[in-house]
């Protein structure tokens, strides 16, 4: 029964949706403006979804990803505005800001990783706690307001283009390739999938699963910081709730992309295509003039329908195995 892998079904969905939108509204959906604006919007959710997916592959979930990203954004903004005001050179200012973002993300990731891997608390609880914790720290920094006043050059990360290709998109592609190589071409990536399949067996096969998990949470938080840099640059400010709506969307994207929520399976490209599907859908429906709440409804319905199809598909597959045996 299972002629197509989950990823190919998704590619089909993407193509059909793209053509559908293009036919329904050719002048606006296919316009350079719209394509470019989609390319500007997509990377944020895309990078956060990859960050989420890496953790889901290990059988966990990272509910703190958006709040740690927001915290990174706020620290970055803090450094940027302070250094900018003090008149330091642009290069040093931006470099310092990026370093601070990455450093913050690694601290956040290390807290998650320590509690999940070394104490052994289930990820959903840890990240539920750290989500609240990071949000609290961010609130303490901003007192609920937004931080702005960045140097103009910083604007480039979120809004610039190279040969008409948006810079965020280029960053996203780099992230995709890096994640692809890390997860699917390195021993560490292999062990990530193994931990997701069966942690006990992985441990007995001589892999230090604590280290593997720790690195997963560090990497996840790192991707969060990249998304944070793009976000702060795109909005030219930083605030506690920037990106908070991406939290459940990123879980949805990862799962839609075929990642098994119980761990052990998940392809980088699946997640990326799922994000693209979500983006085409939301932009397209927006252009068609649909109420954004209806877009929410459709997103939810698609999530359930695609998983139902996956289920029916895999049921057929299991049936075949039984017969063969």
């Amino acid at each position, binding site marked *: 029964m299972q002629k197509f892998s989950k990823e190919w079904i998704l590619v089909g969905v993407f193509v059909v949706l793209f053509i559908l939108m293009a036919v329904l509204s050719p002048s606006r959906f296919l316009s350079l403006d719209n394509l470019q604006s989609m390319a500007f919007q997509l990377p944020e959710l895309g990078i956060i979804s990859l960050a989420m997916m890496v953790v889901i592959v290990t059988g966990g*979930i990272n*509910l703190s990803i958006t709040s740690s990203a927001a915290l990174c954004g706020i620290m970055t903004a803090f450094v940027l505005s302070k250094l900018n005001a003090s008149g330091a050179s642009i290069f040093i200012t931006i470099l310092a800001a990026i370093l601070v973002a990455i450093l913050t993300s690694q601290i956040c990731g290390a807290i998650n990783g320590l*509690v999940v891997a070394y*104490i*052994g*608390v*289930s990820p*959903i*609880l*840890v990240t*539920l*706690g*750290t*989500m*609240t*914790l*990071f*949000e*609290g*720290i961010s*609130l*303490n920094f901003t*007192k*609920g307001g937004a931080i702005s006043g960045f140097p103009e050059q910083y604007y480039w990360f979120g809004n610039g283009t190279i040969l008409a290709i948006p810079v965020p998109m280029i960053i996203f592609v780099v992230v995709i390739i890096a994640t692809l190589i890390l997860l699917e071409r390195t021993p560490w990536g292999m062990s990530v999938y193994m931990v997701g399949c069966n942690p006990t067996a992985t441990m007995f096969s001589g892999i230090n699963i604590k280290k593997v998990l720790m690195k997963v949470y560090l990497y996840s938080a790192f991707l969060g910081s990249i998304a944070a840099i793009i976000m702060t640059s795109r909005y030219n400010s930083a605030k506690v709730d920037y990106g908070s709506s991406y939290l*459940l969307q990123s*879980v*949805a994207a990862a*799962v839609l992309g075929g990642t098994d*929520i*119980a761990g052990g399976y998940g392809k980088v490209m699946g997640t990326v295509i799922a994000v693209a599907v979500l983006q085409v859908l939301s932009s397209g429906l927006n252009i068609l003039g649909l*109420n954004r*709440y*209806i*877009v*929410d*409804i*459709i*997103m*939810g*319905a698609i*999530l*359930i329908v695609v*998983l*139902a199809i996956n*289920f029916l598909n895999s049921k057929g597959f299991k049936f075949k195995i039984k017969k063969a045996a």
Partner: protein
Amino acid sequence: MKRFVKSKEMGILLIIIVISIIISIGNSTFLRPDNIIDMLKGNTVLGIMAMGMLLVIITGGIDVSVGAMVAAVTVLVGKFMVNFSGNVLLAFIVGCLCGTIMGAINGIFIAKLKIPPIVVTLGTMSIINGLMLYYTNGTWINDIPESFINFGKLTLFKIPNGQGGMIGVPIQILFLVIAALVTWVILKYTLIGRGIYAMGGNPVSAARIGYNLDKISIFLYSYMGFVTGLAAVVHTSIMRQVDPNAFTGFELQVVAAVVLGGANILGGAGTVLGTLLGVLLLAIMNNGLILMHIPVFWQKIVVGAVIIIAVSIDVIQRKHAEKNLTKVDIE
């Protein structure tokens, strides 16, 4: 008695007592009856919903759509009362019915299509939220009928408020008590309650013993919907108006309360008493931090830190206990 002293609930109770002592040293109004009653009243909604979430989490599932569900039911009940009838009983029937139907939909998807609970409820959350916001456009419902508002002001009995006067115990607390009792009876005395624990412990074994897991799933997500509906009506009776956006992110608070109460998120363990203590712990922290004049910005940090520390201690204790067990593996 000895068993209770060693139980998880005791640990939570100890944390609650310690925090209470610290807060009451900082601000003596904390232990005043009127503050305690206000605090309880403000958290009945959380408590009632935690009862449903407890069952879901015992089976190893999770329901992240409860925030959207409770908001949707408040809107439906509010519209119903404004347009049709201010009858209190009818409001409860409509609320519980709507909630149960939404929960049953979750249950059917989870049981029949075998989609993981977190994914199904993520989807229904998005759908319910979208439908509700499309319907209301985010506007509040203010003209709740007088009869229902009067019902919300009812009190059960009066207790001295510690300053010579009397203060009434609000009726909303009664619903929390009822929800807790019903949940306790389900878990303790019914076959389906045994099934819930069995399913959380090991679904395969539970199915082999003869439990119908599909039925249990549908029942428990419907029950989750039912208590959510109840909570929605209670919420409306407290607030006397409906804000469609009042419950954004509420689902995670409900989960946090249940988990702080010692329920195992992987399934198989959890008690009504523990969950009530978990709700109380969250309530005390939120209330106490305000009374201690700690800036609002610090509250989340404290709550987050307490969640992490509490669950870490729990896991460390469990690991310690496992070490002392003699293990016999039969394969």
